[in-house]
């Protein structure tokens, strides 16, 4: 029997890769190895519809349980890869078993960055939100009146704050930078979400440096800020970024630099080893890039599937993202990295707005809040490699649809 393609990592990318390989007609053995004890599932609904009880876990599964046997995909769950030997083309699992591969994909994802121990004090009641186990631990604590401290005002922190505030908790967000969303969005977008959260009773502290979390009997009870302020809390959620899971690749001697380095075909520096998703760093528009999104996990994994079977095109996505907070749906088309200016457009619907990012005269991204039309038009423009004159975007009299041909 032929050696299998082995996929290390059973997140969104691993799941998309296995499915695409079968769709493309790959019929040799296929093995997926994942550390989590459950089949691949969607993470975005975890903190929202799953935590609220609206969706049972089974409904988060990316493929139904029977799919794997049907498609002859062997899934090893709760298993971790101890080492990878690119010369031998083998992986060794924690239980000592050794598997040989024909080709291998690293879709190992990422993990939340934790507070350093001197800040967190290793206290109980401090959570991150990435896995179903994380959310299972937090969900029972989301009860009205409890005080939640959110460390970090990025999208993960803001989404956690929105869920908790909706459920009646008293929420305070502590952001080190001078404004929320500083790393990922323009100040106009931050202003929109700051106002949204404040309308829902959330306290947002910006330029607020955490000195340390404060405990009581080993449980978090609050926080001390560097400026001397103290905050009380019953629990804390930390959303200060993620770290790519690139250690296995590093130990195997692959080139790694804040992510596993791949080329346009998503090949790592070792023969027959590919990488996709949060853990992979790839060349995009001339810049080494790592994307943390569902879109990238799926599209890059599908690209790996095609590349493994001989396709020769470079991975060149139009990134897109979304975030749901309260009644607002944020949709982002493109990547605003290196923007030089941006234009705010107010939408027709109440509360709808869009921020158009330019680098020079080139449109590079749009943040659309409750404005799917602007998002859709921006996505179409970016996919076509086109731009739209700033004057047309800035003119409130321009119909949004007309921007497609402006």
């Amino acid at each position, binding site marked *: 029997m032929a050696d299998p393609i082995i996929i290390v990592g059973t997140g969104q990318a691993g799941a998309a890769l296995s499915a695409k390989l079968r769709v493309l007609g790959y019929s040799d053995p296929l093995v997926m190895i994942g550390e989590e004890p459950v089949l691949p599932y969607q993470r975005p609904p975890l903190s929202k519809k799953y935590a609220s009880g609206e969706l049972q876990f089974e409904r988060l599964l990316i493929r139904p349980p029977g799919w794997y046997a049907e498609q002859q995909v062997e899934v090893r769950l709760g298993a971790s890869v101890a080492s990878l030997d690119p010369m031998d083309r083998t992986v060794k699992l924690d239980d000592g078993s050794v598997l040989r591969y024909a080709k291998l994909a690293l879709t190992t994802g990422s993990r939340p960055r934790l507070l350093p121990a001197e800040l967190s004090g290793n206290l109980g009641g401090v959570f991150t939100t990435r896995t179903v186990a994380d959310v299972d631990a937090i969900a029972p604590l989301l009860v009205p009146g409890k005080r939640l401290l959110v460390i970090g005002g990025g999208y993960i922190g803001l989404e956690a704050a929105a869920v908790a505030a909706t459920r009646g908790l008293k929420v305070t967000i502590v952001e080190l930078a001078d404004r929320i969303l500083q790393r990922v969005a323009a100040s106009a977008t931050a202003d929109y979400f700051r106002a949204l959260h404040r309308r829902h009773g959330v306290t947002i502290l910006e330029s607020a440096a955490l000195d340390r979390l404060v405990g009581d009997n080993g449980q978090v009870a609050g926080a001390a800020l560097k400026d001397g302020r103290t905050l009380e809390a019953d629990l804390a959620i930390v959303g200060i970024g993620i770290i790519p899971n690139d250690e296995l690749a590093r130990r195997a001697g692959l080139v790694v630099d804040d992510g596993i380095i791949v080329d346009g075909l998503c090949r790592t520096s070792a023969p027959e080893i590919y990488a996709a998703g949060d853990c992979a760093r790839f060349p995009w528009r001339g810049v080494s890039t790592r994307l943390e999104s569902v879109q990238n996990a799926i599209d890059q994994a599908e690209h790996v599937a095609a590349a493994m079977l001989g396709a020769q095109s470079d991975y060149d996505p139009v990134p897109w993202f979304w975030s749901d907070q309260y009644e607002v749906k944020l949709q982002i088309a493109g990547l605003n990295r290196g923007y030089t200016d941006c234009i705010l457009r107010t939408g027709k619907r109440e509360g709808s707005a869009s921020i158009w990012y330019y680098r020079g005269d080139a449109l590079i991204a749009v943040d659309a809040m409750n404005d*799917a039309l602007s998002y*859709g038009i921006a996505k179409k423009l970016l996919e076509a490699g086109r731009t739209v004159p700033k004057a047309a975007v800035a003119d409130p009299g321009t119909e949004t649809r007309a921007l497609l041909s402006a």
Partner: protein
Amino acid sequence: MPKITWILHDGRSISAEVAVGHNLMEAAVANSVPEVIGECGGCLSCATCHVYVDPAWYEKTGGPGDMESEMLEITSAERRSVSRLSCQIKASEELDGLVLHVPHI
């Protein structure tokens, strides 16, 4: 449970009983209906679960909401008068027998 039928572009069809309240994107994925992708998990952000409601059923499913209608502008296949995003249609007894046509992408 209501029975839903997906007719693929090549004429093949897939039928399944779908629990009331489940949306028809997740039902399609659960039943391995090709070309209904549901990348965003049904939160109205990707338009990859586009279907054409059989005209005989369009009155029962009703038309798209505002945001859904805007998202239908960026589907891969052409938008038609019976276009819907299937994540926004929930299975119900009234939709027992519903027929959806899956566009080729």
